[in-house]
């Protein structure tokens, strides 16, 4: 029952975050994009700012835009925002707020055989972050000193899905410029969708540079997971239920943990805690359960 409640609670958050990040649905009709002041800010999750419905800027797109601009070589503004989001929520952003994360989870509900990702792929997102978000936009510039947003241009399937397809379907003049680059991006989108059907959150695990940043922040994030080793009986239920293939007992703050909370509700001994300010909660719970345990002994 608890598990159902947790998954429903998370879905409601995800849907609300999806709606909040994409509030301008009517823009799909004319293929326009929102041009208001909220675009000064970045959404915490991956959400293409060329999507007609997008309310905010994409943090990874914005990072590349400033890194590759004529005036600046590094974005303190976007980095500051990402560090702030990361130190509060860590990869809780991926699990609770990311619109593309919700899309992947829905794809994974398609009933086909499921597979695990080869562990080596987990490191790919860090390479993508360094090479495509930082090195290429800063180092490969044109005669005006402008770099290109390499991740958006060559990889991002969210941009193709949320921006490319809706805008091309409403702008005939844009359709005339379709070339090999768009074919490459469509190919990446189709492969990503196919992989997400078979592997839970394939894009988050293997390709997402935003997930890489928040994953690093998981080590210190205020919203975090804790284990009470005294209560843990090593039954392995938490590890078995984890779709991100994390062992919460060994690594409660693993870079892959998206803080979905499934392990917390699977634990028969209530040995796992997920939330803010856990030390006080843990103490309170221990005090609460102690008399009950004593009663049982009597």
């Amino acid at each position, binding site marked *: 029952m608890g598990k159902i409640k947790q998954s429903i609670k998370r879905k409601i958050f995800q849907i609300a975050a999806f709606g909040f990040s994409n509030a301008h649905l009517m823009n799909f009709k004319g293929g326009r994009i929102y041009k208001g002041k909220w675009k000064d800010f970045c959404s915490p999750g991956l959400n*293409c*700012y060329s999507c007609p419905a997008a309310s905010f800027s994409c943090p990874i797109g914005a990072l590349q835009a400033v890194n590759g601009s004529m005036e*600046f070589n590094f974005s303190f503004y976007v980095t*500051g925002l990402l560090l702030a989001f990361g130190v509060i929520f860590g990869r809780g952003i991926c699990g609770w707020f990311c619109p593309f994360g919700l899309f992947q989870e829905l794809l994974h509900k398609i009933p086909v055989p499921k597979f695990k990702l080869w562990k080596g792929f987990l490191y790919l997102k860090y390479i993508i972050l360094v090479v495509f978000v930082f090195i290429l936009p800063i180092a490969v510039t044109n005669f005006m000193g402008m770099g290109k947003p390499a991740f958006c241009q060559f990889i991002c399937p969210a941009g193709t899905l949320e921006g490319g397809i809706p805008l091309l379907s409403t702008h005939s003049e844009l359709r005339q410029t379709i070339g090999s680059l768009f074919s*490459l991006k469509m190919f990446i989108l189709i492969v990503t969708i196919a992989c997400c059907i078979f592997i839970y959150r394939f894009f988050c695990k293997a390709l997402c540079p935003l997930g890489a940043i928040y994953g690093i922040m998981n080590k210190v994030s205020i919203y975090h997971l804790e284990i009470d080793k005294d209560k843990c009986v090593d039954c392995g239920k938490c590890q078995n239920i984890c779709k991100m293939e994390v062992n919460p007992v060994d690594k409660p703050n693993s870079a892959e943990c998206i803080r979905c909370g499934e392990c917390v509700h699977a634990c028969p001994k209530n040995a796992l805690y997920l939330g803010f300010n856990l030390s006080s909660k843990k103490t309170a719970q221990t005090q609460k359960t102690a008399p009950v345990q004593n009663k049982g002994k009597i």
Partner: protein
Amino acid sequence: MENKMKNIARVAVFVVAGAFALYGITRGEVAVVFSKAVNICLECIGLG
């Protein structure tokens, strides 16, 4: 002890995050972000 170190790290990251964001705002990065976000980004949609 480990919790204390983590709390120190959290505060430090938060201070750095705030300082970075403020510095970025004062030197005009928001305008770059805004101009990119309110125009169709051809590279982002696979046309650039």
